[in-house]
């Protein structure tokens, strides 16, 4: 039976392409987690509750979408969480220095962009592996944030700015709308445009990509810069949600963001993956976290479960890709 199916699939590459895809793992996991959460608490059957639980993760979700692009193109950015903290702290510092809201926001976004650009330049010009380099800037950016803000919470923002997570359109919080629209736009970009296609080619074989006339370095530089910009946006959003900016915001968030990308079936060695998977994985993390909270599992123990899921996600993705290749 299984044999017949696999022969049939081998003879129909298009069908195989659609069936053997790791994001189906994410979809199945999502269904499982929804069902088990509803068993846990009737709250989970309420869409509004799930939406509300999602808002604290939207900042991570936005970055996960950009990180998906970076991982598909064969690189990684681990300095993301530090860039959230640094841009938030810069934003708070600027505002408290009396620069006014619009200018402070621009400065935050600009500094994020600059951080990303710095990552990008070092990775592409000096050919330093991004996993090593961004561990370095992870520490560096967090360090700069700490020396700027020390242990203070930078607050005092106008009330219209605070609490973006409590603004709704219908039952949907505004951050969730931002996230969804962003996912659709980037997803479309990745799946349907030539630029998206080139990311896959670069991730599959950067040498061949270079010899095919694809501007590998420029595209990677752009991706890292974009990652910085989106972290800047996330920094401002987080500050709005928490009403303060601190140097230790989003500590460890890089792991949760990587988890979203991996769980969504993006291949850690590049060349494969998509935004749909990351989008689904975002909701898995949301429901899982909310479920664990409802089940009164301590934050400290939650990390164990997320870590285990990350490993399972990587094993499954690798297994499925090895199957789909032969």
């Amino acid at each position, binding site marked *: 039976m299984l*044999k017949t199916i696999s022969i049939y699939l081998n*003879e129909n*590459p*298009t069908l195989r392409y659609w069936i053997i895809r790791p994001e189906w793992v994410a979809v199945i996991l999502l269904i499982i987690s929804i069902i088990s959460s509803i068993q846990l608490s009737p709250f989970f059957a309420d869409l509004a509750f799930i939406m509300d639980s999602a808002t604290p993760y939207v900042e991570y979700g936005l970055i996960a979408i950009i990180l998906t692009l970076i991982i598909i193109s064969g690189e990684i950015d681990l300095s993301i969480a530090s860039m959230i903290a640094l841009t938030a702290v810069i934003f708070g510092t600027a505002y408290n220095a009396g620069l006014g809201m619009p200018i402070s926001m621009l400065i935050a976004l600009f500094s994020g962009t600059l951080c990303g650009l710095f990552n990008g330049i070092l990775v592409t010009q000096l050919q330093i592996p991004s996993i090593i380099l961004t561990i370095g800037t992870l520490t560096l950016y967090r360090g700069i944030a700490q020396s700027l803000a020390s242990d203070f919470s930078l607050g005092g923002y106008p009330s219209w700015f605070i609490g973006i997570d409590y603004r709704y359109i219908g039952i949907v919080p505004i951050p969730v709308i931002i996230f969804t629209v962003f996912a659709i736009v980037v997803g479309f970009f990745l799946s349907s*445009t030539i630029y998206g296609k080139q990311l896959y080619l670069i991730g599959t074989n950067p040498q061949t*990509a270079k010899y*095919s*006339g694809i501007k590998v370095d420029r595209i990677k530089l752009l991706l890292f810069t974009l990652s910085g910009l989106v972290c800047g946006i996330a920094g401002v959003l987080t500050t709005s949600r928490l009403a303060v900016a601190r140097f230790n915001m989003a500590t460890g968030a890089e792991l949760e963001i990587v988890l979203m990308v991996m769980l969504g079936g993006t291949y850690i060695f590049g060349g494969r993956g998509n935004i749909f998977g990351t989008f689904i994985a975002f909701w898995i993390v949301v429901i899982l976290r909310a479920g664990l909270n409802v089940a009164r599992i301590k934050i400290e123990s939650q990390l164990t479960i997320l870590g285990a899921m990350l490993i399972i996600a990587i094993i499954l993705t690798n297994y499925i890709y090895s199957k789909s*290749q*032969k």
Partner: protein
Amino acid sequence: MQLKTNNIGKTFSGVNVLRNVDFDLKPGEVHALVGENGAGKSTFVKILSGVYTPTEGKIFLDEKQVNITSPIVAQKNGVSLIHQEPQSFSHLSVAENIFMGHMEGNNFSRVKWQDINNKSNEILESIGLKIDPKIIMEGLSIADQQMIEIAGALSKNSKVLIMDEPTSPLTPNEVGKLFDIVNKLKSNGMAIIFISHRLEEIRQISDRVTIFRDGDLITTKNINEVSNEEIIKFMIGRNIEEIEVKENQFIKNDEYILNVKNLSLSKKFNDISFNLKKGEILGFAGLVGAGRTEVAKSIFGAEKFDKGEIIYNGETIVNNSPNEAINNGFAYVPEDRKQMGIFGPVAVEDNVTSAIPKEISNSIGLINSKTVSTMTNDYINKFNIILTSGRQLIEELSGGNQQKCIISKWLLSKPKVLILDEPTRGVDVGVKSEMYEIINKLAEEGTAIILISSELPEILSLSHRIIVMREGKITKILNNKEATQEKIMSYAIN
């Protein structure tokens, strides 16, 4: 050792790639395996060397049945595989590479270096090699690395040696050296399986030849009782015309499209000057490492150059990147297909259209997938590429079909100057002659072609003029009429 197989078969996910192979190999014999790519010879030797386990059939060594379940089991039974590209640990010493996996330690598991170096020396001397076992692998030529791999097999007391296209990365001179060693091993009673696409070599070195086609063992013959034409006939099941030498040696027009003047890159090549006409095929002959590929890469913008000038259509240009080169009308089919030519786990149609982003998308970058499939299918039909559909992954195709896809990719970019770097390496005879037709036709249509090849018959039959390089310099430019294999070789070596 005598090796016999009985009814060996192999099935991959339901597809029968090898059927009923009854094969025998005698001690002191060189037994050649030939067949087009995908004929089953590689699968067969992978079964013998333990990389694959057969779906059916039996293997006998000296009349005793053995189950070869892994490469280690194969080696313990005296069967070793020498890879086409040497698989060495480049940062370790020669001796470490020879004894990798079976180094003897003393009581505290410390390596007995003295012992290993001495033994390595003995083995290397026994095959007439003068290499210090203490030097690091990295600095050695591919030929020497291959010899080290053979030495490794000897250190394991191998009785059956399987050589998978050992000559394809070697220069003619090195092939000679390899054959000396093969003959020496043979006279010591080693049983050798030798895979090659080059019939002259097979004729020179082997005693018997076995021909595979489409997963079947077609026949085994004594080499003296079979002609090249017959072998080719067995391989492809049809006659193939001999490649004729070019009739019109001179291009009538005088339109120079490319003028390269005094191009230099330190330590790579020096003072390279040549010109190229529209519709001309300019052959680049020379030994591996003569700097031909480096010159090509500099012209294509993949590498820089220090000095010199490239005049293209009467204007001085500099290609700062392959991207600029492509926009200027250059195309480069690289030598290393796997590393620089294909996107392995990617659909054929995405590979074929990867160099023409503008042609397959609209102004905002949306891909027109219909255009992509039409363009791909055009070339699939034109070049007779064998695959199930354009969505099939390119890595699942045979080497020859992959190469056709790469050529298609570059023809879609409508190049004015096409650089082909070893375009027929690892490609079987049938595809080769198709490739020659394609190249000739392109030239007739006006494409200027730079052909880098280490196969002299190929260079001789295709090129209008031949540039011979040695150690980074042009030593001679020959017209097709005056060129012979001997002449080219005399300018290519010291």
